[in-house]
């Protein structure tokens, strides 16, 4: 078990940072509390660098020490989480306590340590990232459940305190109750899996499935778990909360919601699928393919899981896109687009990693999902960052007001060139316009789907991309081609300039990663390798027993 610890250093670093942030956040002076953001940033950066450079070589971890089902994914996922986490952190500046701090600055009131939420906000943010990273090295159902809840619980509070308006609180409450419903669903599923296999260890469950097949009880558990976890990725039918919560929360928190829980959800889905299906073949061991055929799943998911994910993917894409078409609020639009993108990624899950002959980046659906998570994270942060970096001039009550509608974006390329062009680039990338990152993200989803023979699903994916063009082009054209309404109140830049930085960094990332994506794709290809939890022996019972004894 001590071997597992070497995977966990990034989480440990984040946790220590969280504690430091919480303690500093209790200090009596305003200035010291302001340092919390910097400390959080330093902690995330350190964890990211650690994950990228010092993650243990997955090959060296023996099965007995808890080898993971997607061994190479850990380092990749944590690095990805850290990088996008840093970009999100840039956005978080000035999210909470804004009005209090403005009043303090104006001298209308003095600093009251009890009323400041700043440190708590950053601590929750860090907790959520910690949970997300923990999802990636889950090798146990209980671990997975705790990691998922550690990711989610802070987000409910972050949504509620992100704005001073009541709709933020409403969104927080809704998110919490529905999230609890989702959590109950997958917890029930986990319980059924445990009941069917007698183990919570993913390796053990996997080898149990391989030798004894998947019992109906276990299958029900798997399906319920997938459905429950799909709350995190906002897939149909668990998507209902998305627009309301995204709209209610501040845009920077919506950006966070669109990335962090979604990544946690996809990592969990990949793990659950790896437990129940797919070929557990390291590259090059074509000889044992015949034995795998006897095992449930083969190179595909078990039929029932595949069918359910197939239906979910098709519905999620379509529902997300057709509802997005009708929106005028950019936040709601992006919420539905987030739903639709989850549907796209589910295509990669349905396609799966393929057999040993398909180890290329473009044929491995798991790699495609992992790559798309990065692409989506970067471009999505860009869009929300533009929204967060803008605001309307204060109303009569002196409170700041968010920008919201597409009309607010009009003519942004001339009024705020950096933000306008970021919006154009990120929208076009979300649409999947060829030279940009979104295209290179979507392409392997298509090719993996074709490779897996899921042609109808790929056609649905293509049609949905076409529908999505409608609203993404509106988002791109509004800043670029249209002129601001003369009658409307002007949109001004938010005083928190780091948010602009986040927008520009995202847009730059969308362009640069597309150019420099080659080595990244190689990383993803590797990260997408799915392997046997237990060294694969055709012996059956003996192996199962030894695994269980572990």
């Amino acid at each position, binding site marked *: 078990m001590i071997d597992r610890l070497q995977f966990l250093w990034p989480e440990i670093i984040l946790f220590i940072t969280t504690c430091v942030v919480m303690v500093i956040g209790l200090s009596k002076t305003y200035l010291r509390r302001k340092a919390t953001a910097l400390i959080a940033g330093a902690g995330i950066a350190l964890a990211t660098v650690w994950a990228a450079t010092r993650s243990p070589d997955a090959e060296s971890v023996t099965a007995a020490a808890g080898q993971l089902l997607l061994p190479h994914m850990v380092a990749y996922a944590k690095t990805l989480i850290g990088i996008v986490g840093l970009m999100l952190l840039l956005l978080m500046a000035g999210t909470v306590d804004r009005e209090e701090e403005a009043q303090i600055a104006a001298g209308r009131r003095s600093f009251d340590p009890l009323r400041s939420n700043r440190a708590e906000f950053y601590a929750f943010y860090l907790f959520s990232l910690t949970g997300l990273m923990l999802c990636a090295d889950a090798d146990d159902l209980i671990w997975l459940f705790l990691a998922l809840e550690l990711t989610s619980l802070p987000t409910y509070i972050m949504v509620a305190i992100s704005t001073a308006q009541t709709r933020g609180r409403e969104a927080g409450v809704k998110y919490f109750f529905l999230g609890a419903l989702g959590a109950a669903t997958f917890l029930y599923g986990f319980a059924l899996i445990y009941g069917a296999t007698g183990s919570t260890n993913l390796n053990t469950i996997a080898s149990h499935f391989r030798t004894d097949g998947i019992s109906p009880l276990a299958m*029900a558990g798997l399906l319920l778990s997938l*459905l429950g976890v799909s709350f995190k990725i906002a897939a149909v*039918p668990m998507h*209902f*909360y998305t627009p309301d919560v995204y709209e209610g929360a501040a845009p920077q928190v919506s950006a966070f919601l669109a990335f962090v829980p979604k990544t946690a959800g996809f990592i969990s889905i990949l793990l659950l699928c790896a437990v129940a299906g797919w070929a557990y073949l390291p590259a090059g061991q074509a000889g044992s393919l015949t034995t795998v055929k006897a095992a449930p799943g083969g190179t595909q998911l078990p039929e029932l899981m595949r069918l359910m994910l197939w239906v979910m993917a098709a519905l999620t894409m379509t529902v997300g896109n*057709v509802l997005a*078409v009708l929106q005028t609020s950019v936040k709601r639009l992006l919420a539905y687009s987030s739903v639709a993108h989850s549907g796209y990624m589910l295509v990669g899950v349905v396609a799966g990693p393929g057999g040993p002959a398909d180890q290329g980046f473009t044929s491995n659906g798991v790699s495609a999902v992992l790559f798309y998570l990065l692409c989506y994270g970067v471009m999505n942060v860009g869009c929300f960052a533009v929204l967060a970096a803008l605001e309307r001039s204060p109303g009569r009550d002196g409170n700041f007001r968010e920008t919201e509608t597409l009309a607010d974006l009009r003519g942004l390329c001339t009024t705020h060139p950096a933000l306008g062009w970021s919006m154009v680039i990120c929208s076009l990338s979300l649409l999947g316009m060829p030279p940009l990152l979104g295209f290179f993200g979507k392409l392997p989803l298509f090719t993996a789907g074709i490779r897996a023979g899921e042609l109808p699903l790929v056609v649905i994916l293509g049609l949905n991309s076409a*529908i999505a063009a409608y609203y993404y082009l509106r988002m791109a054209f509004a800043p670029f081609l249209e002129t601001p309404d003369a009658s409307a109140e002007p949109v001004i830049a938010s005083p928190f300039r780091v948010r602009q930085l986040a927008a520009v960094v995202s847009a730059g990332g969308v362009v640069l990663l597309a150019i420099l994506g080659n080595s990244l794709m190689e990383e993803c290809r590797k990260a997408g390798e799915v392997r046997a939890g237990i060294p694969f022996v055709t012996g059956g019972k003996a192996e199962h027993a030894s695994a269980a004894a572990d």
Partner: protein
Amino acid sequence: MTTLTNILHAALTGSIGQHGEVAHAAAGAAPVQIAANGPWYAVLIPVFAIAAFLLCALCAAFKVKSKLPAWITVACLAASCGVSASVYAWVSSHGPAITYVFDWIHVVWGKDKGQSFVANFAFYLDTLTCLWMLFVTGLATLIALYASEYMSHDVGQGYNRFFAAFSLFVFSMACLVMADNFILLYLGWEGVGLCSYLLIGYFYKKPSAVAAAKKAFIVNRIGDLFLALGIMLCFVHFGTVEYKAVFAGVEEYIKHFEAGEFNKIPPVAQWIAYLLMGGAFGKSAQLPLYVWLPDAMEGPTPVSALIHAATMVTAGVFLIARTYPIFMISQYALHSVAWVGALTALLAATIGMAQFDIKRIMAYSTVSQLGYMFAGLGVMTSVGAAAHVFTHAFFKAMLFLSCGAVMHGFAGQLDLRKLSGVGSMPGWRIVGIAMLVGCLNLAGFPIITAGFWSKDAILGGAFANPHAQSIGWILLLTAGLTAYYTFRVYFRVFVGPQHFEPGDELHAHDDHGHDHAHAGHDHGHDGGHQSHSHDKAAASHDFHPHAPGWAINTVLAILAISAFVVILPLKLIPGELGWVGQMVEGSTARAVGHMEHAKFFGFDAHQAMMVVSSVVGLAGIAVAFVLHYAGRTSAATSRADALLPAFGPLANWAQHKWYVDEFYDFLIRKPLLVLAHLFHIIDQYLVDGLVDAAGYLPRAIGRLLRPSQSGELHGYALGMAGGVAALLLIVFLATTSW
């Protein structure tokens, strides 16, 4: 003088004896081997060019109003030329090699043949590449220097734009020539097409220039379609687009080719050549796609000289030379190339004879000479074709630059009926001499001109090829016509009584240009004034032709000298066409296979052709002398006019370019227009209707689903629970067999 004697000596003794044996000596040898460790500095050739482009773009961004972009371009291109020379030195000592720069397109989806698509940014450096790069960069440097003066009336944004496009052209040409795969070649191919379009349309306020640019672009698109299809077919058949692997694939068919068993070569492999040929015909202005090149003369003259005479239009020749093995394994491909080339040569020569615009005459002569090159490739004398590309690049660039100097000095006047005796006007001597040298080369004046030797190699090759006798006769006839129309220009414009009428650009020239004529070229101006006062026929009272300045004169002088100097590598080094021969023999363009040597009336074809083509060339010059020089007293008329009725409508038709443009207009453009209107109607009512309906569908579904987003918590919870139940139900119902 000693040099000349040496050349004559070498020409008469050394090479005549060696004709024939060397030509096909390399037959059946091992395939061209290529190493993978080319010199890294080869990358500097395109890098310098793109650097010049970026710097010129910066100049444009900062609105530079000086000759800075010209000097940047000249310096960078000279550096490219220097690098080309050192790459050549490397290749000649180490043999051909590939220089890998970076992974450009690298997609692998399996380990088998055809399961990867690799097109790296890498350069295939063999002697053929070096030959092309040397003259491309060398001429580009000289012509950029020339243009620095020629374009001086446009200093400012136009000047910046010109040199940016000029540098981008050289970059694209370097990609095209140095590519180690078809995709990079295609990038360069489209790049040169784009630059050509931009530069033809340089005077974008002039409708004819815009129309010419569009015509060039669209006609080239037709050719490019074939090139793209050829590349795709190449990938389909050989599973790769890298030359090295493609040639390795072709190698197994070469033995069938040598045995003449074309039925053992798959038809798909043979088709590649036809498709590539289509691309070559478009870019190199061959039948039926030659129509864009004469119109392309709307661009500034340096552009015509570099792009539309010396370099870009030889890209088609290069493509065929580079992929010569692919053409050899195709049964009729080379025959087709030869016939198209020969017919283009003849057709363009007949049109050239009847034109009055000297630049247009040069354009048709370019089409005609390109036809020669294609014919040379087609009759399996790739050496002759490459040599002709090489010599033609120098003398045709010089001819264009001389015409450009005239156009520049006489306010855009190009009509040979309105200019006379230009060569003897003070300050115009170098232009006159350069024009004479160029004309002698183009006409194929025996022994002392490089153009003679390269043209002779093609003619000899044609007559030596037993299947190409008729092509030989066509080319021989064309040689006579070429000599005639070339010297028609020379005798009308550059010698004879002095006379000029300025062109219509007189008032288009801004004051700056006119001041420039006064201040910058006093010597020329004075001379022009004198001749003006003597010549009562001058149309404009305040027009003074301004003789070219130092940049134009220097470039013309260098080119005039090098037009002779290129004879040295052609004739002093042993082997057929000496240095160029070696360059081609050591590359992919080497002709392999045995071929019986046909006789020309019992004589060796090559030796006989030296005499026959000399006679034909001299006869053409003599006819031009009699008709256009002897006894001519005015600019507008000559003895030839008296002969016109004898030709009946033929002369008129030739002057109207055999109505080919009108024919294309009637046959292709009009039906397309009608079709376009038809489709427009269909599009507007049927397709738009369907699209509107399709666009309405998502909205309709969206409206249907919208009530589900009521905002009520219990509604959402119900939806989630219901959704879970429904999905589980679907799954279990759908797989009852489980």
